[in-house]
């Protein structure tokens, strides 16, 4: 049976996630299709139909219901998974807060896509950014392999007793969801222990879940979410270290490329963060000491040390009337004065050559909308 030996495959980001889900074997999957996520739910439905995955698959009638069903299943102590994108993620919004407040470790893949109008199915991070404050852990991946590895780790992190929060694995629409890359699978084995949800419904010990709650208790529950978010930092490090030890691939809150001696850091998330490495190689050939810092974990947001270096941030999502979301997050948590480039909205093509240009033409403290108000 597949999953009992490690395999070398060629897969899309979507297929890699479906394969990871198959191996982790959640008890319940509830999902609703949306471009560019469809391949994930179709593949999972196919696994369930051909018996290679024994999950209960609930083909819900909406994303609000997908998340509600995952919450309902999860509170019985079942492992759950769903996947969505863009408008689907926004349609879940109410239930995303509910999942975090209910402390259910639902794992979800979100294929990052722009939001209408006009209709646009291509990559953008605004969908995930708009759910930033819901209490979900959020990670952004950049390769097919990373999508697979991170989805497996996601279950262990979310279900850890010090976390017990839902977790969103973000991957760029099309540029990663539909791109074929080599994939090496692992044998999950006891890397993912059985889920133990301490507050699972127990009919022998009846309790009320989520009733009216006064300000004092409510406030404590909210603090408890934040405390777990903070504790998640260590859990993430531990799980990633164990993954590296067992399977040989190492991940962290950020991924650094040629950063040790860099004077200038190019900071991005998702596939842009990988493309930036090529830009760095080009810049280095010109004698510009650039490095790439890819922000992998967005919630909890990593602790960055950017001191003494110029910073160029590429943002694939914007907070209107405020600024690039990643840029502003970095400004809030470091002393950096970044050159903020807004690029790639609605799937806009941005190459490593463009990125090298952002570094060469950087104007610290300023903001540029690439291709719109570019000063060349």
């Amino acid at each position, binding site marked *: 049976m597949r999953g009992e030996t490690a395999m070398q495959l060629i897969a899309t980001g979507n297929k890699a996630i479906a394969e990871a889900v198959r191996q982790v074997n959640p008890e*319940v999957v*509830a999902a609703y299709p949306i471009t560019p996520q469809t391949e994930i739910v179709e593949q999972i439905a196919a696994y369930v139909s051909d018996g290679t995955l024994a999950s209960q698959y*609930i083909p819900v*009638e909406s994303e609000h*219901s997908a998340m*509600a069903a995952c919450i*309902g299943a999860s509170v019985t102590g079942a492992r759950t998974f769903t996947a969505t994108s863009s408008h689907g993620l926004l349609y879940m919004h109410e239930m995303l807060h509910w999942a975090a407040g209910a402390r259910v470790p639902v794992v979800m893949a979100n294929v990052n896509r722009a939001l209408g109008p006009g209709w646009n199915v291509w990559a953008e991070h605004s969908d995930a950014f708009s759910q930033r404050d819901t209490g979900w852990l959020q990670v952004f991946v950049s390769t097919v392999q990373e999508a697979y590895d991170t989805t497996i780790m996601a279950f262990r992190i979310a279900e850890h007793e010090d976390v017990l929060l839902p977790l969103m694995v973000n991957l760029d629409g099309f540029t990663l969801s539909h791109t074929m890359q080599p994939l090496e699978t692992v044998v999950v084995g006891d890397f993912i222990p059985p889920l133990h949800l301490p507050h699972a*419904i127990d*009919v022998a010990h009846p*309790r009320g879940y989520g009733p009216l709650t006064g300000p004092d208790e409510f406030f404590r529950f909210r603090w408890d979410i934040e405390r777990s978010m903070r504790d998640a930092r260590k859990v993430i490090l531990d799980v990633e270290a164990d993954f590296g030890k067992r399977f040989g691939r190492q991940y962290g809150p950020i991924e650094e490329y040629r950063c040790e001696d860099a004077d200038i850091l190019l900071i991005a998330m998702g596939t842009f963060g990988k493309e930036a490495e090529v830009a760095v190689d080009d810049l280095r050939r010109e004698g510009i000491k650039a490095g790439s810092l890819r922000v992998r974990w967005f919630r909890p947001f990593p602790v960055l040390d950017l001191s003494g270096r110029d910073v160029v941030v590429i943002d694939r999502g914007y907070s209107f009337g405020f600024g690039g979301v990643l840029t502003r997050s970095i400004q809030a948590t470091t002393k950096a004065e970044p050159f903020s480039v807004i690029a790639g909205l609605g799937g806009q093509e941005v190459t490593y050559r463009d990125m090298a240009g952002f570094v060469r033409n950087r104007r610290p403290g300023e903001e540029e909308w690439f291709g719109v108000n570019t000063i060349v």
Partner: protein
Amino acid sequence: MTEIPKEEYILKCTSACAGCSSTLSLRYVLKAAGPDMVLVVPACCTSVIQGTYPRTAMNIPVYNIAFAAAAACASGMSAAYRKKGVKTRVIVYAGDGGTVDIGLQALSGAFERGTDFLYICYDNEAYGNTGMQRSGSTPLGAITTTTPGGKVHPKKDIDRIIEAHNPPYIATACSAYPLDLFQKVTKALSLEGPKFIHLLAPCPPGWRFPAEKTVEVGKLAVKTGSWILWEREHGTLQVSGPSRAAMKKRVPLDEYLKMQGRFRNITEQQKQELQRNIDRALARIACEVKQPCS
């Protein structure tokens, strides 16, 4: 004789209003279901009457969920219990707003997918939790805080919408007939798949009648034919005892309307329309019972 279990799953001192018939009914629902169950409750009066954390007035697990999401949440629970091979019953107890309005999509989806659960809509014919605004289930002519002159649209026929999903079991009930309700819940829970019970639950503050009249108002709803008690098991319709009697001899509709302050603005024309709707509904039922469709 039906034996009603002595166990109480709603403890004394809920925060329901005096004369709250939906809470009285829930007591019988839980007695019929027994302790191996989870009650799923969306935002509604029932999310209030169970008490404030960390206390609970319920002696069974109650899962509170967002207003629109009860049926979907129950779908997930039901799937998880199926996967675990556990027989725990999943019962939704939702208001009319959470059923015929905001929760309709999730409800329809859960029924279409054949979810194994029981969905009970207790119908107080308005949004009670938020102070009695109109719902799709508010009857023609009734005053609510958002229909201060009386509602100009008729009540949505949720039963026919649910019937269109061909569930194994659908029934109506009324809080004034607890034994009938108890038997229907018991019957529903003996069947696999999605079951629906639509329960009329007179609401003293919302309908504007004295709390001690809550049973009388419920009985008049049935005796005037405004509310018809029936059940449909695998498609076969059966009229329940109290409504069989009402079909033979009806109390005039006015007796029901004049007990309730919410109908004080109702026009003659609206009364006639209500009466026509009653006649039509009873005729349809009588016809089907006489000549069951194959």
